[in-house]
């Protein structure tokens, strides 16, 4: 619901309200040539006047003369590391002198996060992670602890990168739900929408101004432009049948020749959930811990059982990645696992483009 207009110069007031409500604000910032999420105390830390140039195997930032805070597409991380930690202890165990074992659950101690500048694709990915970690009879306690209390401030995309294709997956450039607040950034300020009661409470005292018709038009136009500017796309939103019927397509071998199996794609992908477990013990043998750590289907260990690696080569591992992401995700979660964020394309050291590979395999042709 439209709440009003916030002048660009008053953006700090929004952060102050959130801090005042006890949230720890996290926002996009430039670090080592990329945009990352980090603790945000003032709006001066935001990537103002920055744009990102992304293409297959390439991510670069550039200064612009503009004053917008969110005139770029996305950074390396989505929301995934904030809810599903790259490494976390699940439980600990203590061993008494008589050998008795005492197990105790470990929970993240966590301040409530308010994340500023969340993209539509990242919200769609978060909804998928929520289904994976919370949508069963027994929720994942660590994920639930991190997720509950998270306050999300979305910003609709005005400047997609060369890798983005959320328009084709239906997940952007406009955030359609799952946020507490959503902002349309115009040169002079922000149209503020609320998506939840606590979102509305937060902005109630901000003194928002009425939104003018021309501001509303400008916001709608920039979404249309953002959609139209996207050059990449998937052949269809449901590629399950095409992928499942092509497990021996020669293209799998061709892409395997280029793929380094480094796992960058699975770690930047906002929906990949695979993790391995790792057990450790104190040096004196009195206690141990059981942790999980992000894993990737590109590793040999991912499919190892004693004496057999089920997916023995890069061909079968790349096939798992693509077929799971764009195919079997439908069976598991009722939709594709790709939200079109383009990260796996930009951050692939070999410049492999998921949209090209999907098109080649699903069209039945083996070249091109």
């Amino acid at each position: 619901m439209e709440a009003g207009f916030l002048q660009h110069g008053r953006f700090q007031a929004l952060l102050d309200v959130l801090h005042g409500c006890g949230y720890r604000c996290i926002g996009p910032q430039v670090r080592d040539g990329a945009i990352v999420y980090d603790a945000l105390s003032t709006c001066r830390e935001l990537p103002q006047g920055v744009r990102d140039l992304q293409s297959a195997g390439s991510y670069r930032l550039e200064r612009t003369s503009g004053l917008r805070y969110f005139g770029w597409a996305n950074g390396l991380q989505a929301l995934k590391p904030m809810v599903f930690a790259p490494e976390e202890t699940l439980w600990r165990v203590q061993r008494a002198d008589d050998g008795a074992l005492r197990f105790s659950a470990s929970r993240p101690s966590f301040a409530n996060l308010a994340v500023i500048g969340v993209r539509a694709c990242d919200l769609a990915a978060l909804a998928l992670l929520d289904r994976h970690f919370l949508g069963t009879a027994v929720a994942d306690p660590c994920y639930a602890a991190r997720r509950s209390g998270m306050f999300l401030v979305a910003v609709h995309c005005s400047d997609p990168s060369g890798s983005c294709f959320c328009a084709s997956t239906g997940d952007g450039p406009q955030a359609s739900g799952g946020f507490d607040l959503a902002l349309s950034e115009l040169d002079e300020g922000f149209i503020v929408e609320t998506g939840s009661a606590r979102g509305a409470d937060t902005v109630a005292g901000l003194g928002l101004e009425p939104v003018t018709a021309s501001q509303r038009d400008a916001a709608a136009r920039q979404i249309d432009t953002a959609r139209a500017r996207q050059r990449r796309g998937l052949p269809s939103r449901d590629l399950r049948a095409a992928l499942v019927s092509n497990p021996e397509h020669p293209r799998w071998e061709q892409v395997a020749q280029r793929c380094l199996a480094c796992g960058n794609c699975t770690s930047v992908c906002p929906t990949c959930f695979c993790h391995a477990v790792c057990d450790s013990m104190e040096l004196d043998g009195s206690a141990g811990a059981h942790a999980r750590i992000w894993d990737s289907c590109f590793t040999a260990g991912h499919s190892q059982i004693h004496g057999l690696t089920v997916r023995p080569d890069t061909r079968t591992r790349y096939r798992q990645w693509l077929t799971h992401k764009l195919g079997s995700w439908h069976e598991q979660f009722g939709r594709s696992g790709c939200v079109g964020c383009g990260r796996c394309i930009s951050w692939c050291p070999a410049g492999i483009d998921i949209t090209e590979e999907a098109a080649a395999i699903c069209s039945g042709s083996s070249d091109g």
Partner: protein
Amino acid sequence: MDDPLLPHEAEVAEYIRESAGIFTLRLRFRDPAVHAGYRFAPGQFNMLYLYGAGEVPISVVSDPLDDTLFDHTIRALGRVTRGFAQLRAADRLGIRGPYGRGWPLDQARGRDVVIITGGLGCAPAVSLINYIVRRREEFGRLVIMQGVKHADDLIWAERYRRWSQMAQTQVVVAADVGTPLWPWQVGHVTDFIGQAHIDARKTIVMMCGPEGMMRAAVGGLQAYGLPESAVWLSMERSMQCAVGRCGHCQIGGKFVCKDGPVFNYPQVRELLAVRGL
């Protein structure tokens, strides 16, 4: 809060050495309330935690109605299972479970049952055979087909001999490589499916073992005109969480840990046909 990943402390009540490298742990939960609340079905598995080393999935092989102890028969293969082999009575470990879907025993009741297994005492089949043999009169003809690579790999030879003497029971054991005194068949166990005299109208087939063996068995069963829906199989994949979260056990869209490990053949027909999924 109810934690799906937190093990309960259990203790070894008895350690039974079955053969070189294979042993049975007879266990009870230390907390009597946990023990009393524990129920499982044949074909389901537990996650067993060896202190400081890690967790592994292991089938429960004891009888589901025996509430005194529950048993795991384990082959010492790697880091964790070799550690379990060192445990002795009163030693402690962590257990959580049971997980997965077990064998369709209600559907099998009253019908002829064919069990085909390959590899060394394939554990999910052990629980199944034990269950049926203890309730022999509730089932029709029973055919147990066991394949091993080498004749020396067969454990529990005495049990196979005993089962073969039960009424209405046929046992076919085959080794790819035989020895001079080997009393059973030589060849792939699936080569002998023609000798099982299956009545397609009233037989249910349950199998577990290497996927190549199961593919070959399905081929052999087709000659009988057995409907595919009468075939069930237990799959093995890497399992690190057992609750459908870690992603390791996936085959196609299935999470073997919670959608399986026992599947009806038509559910996995296409998946089984592709190598390296």
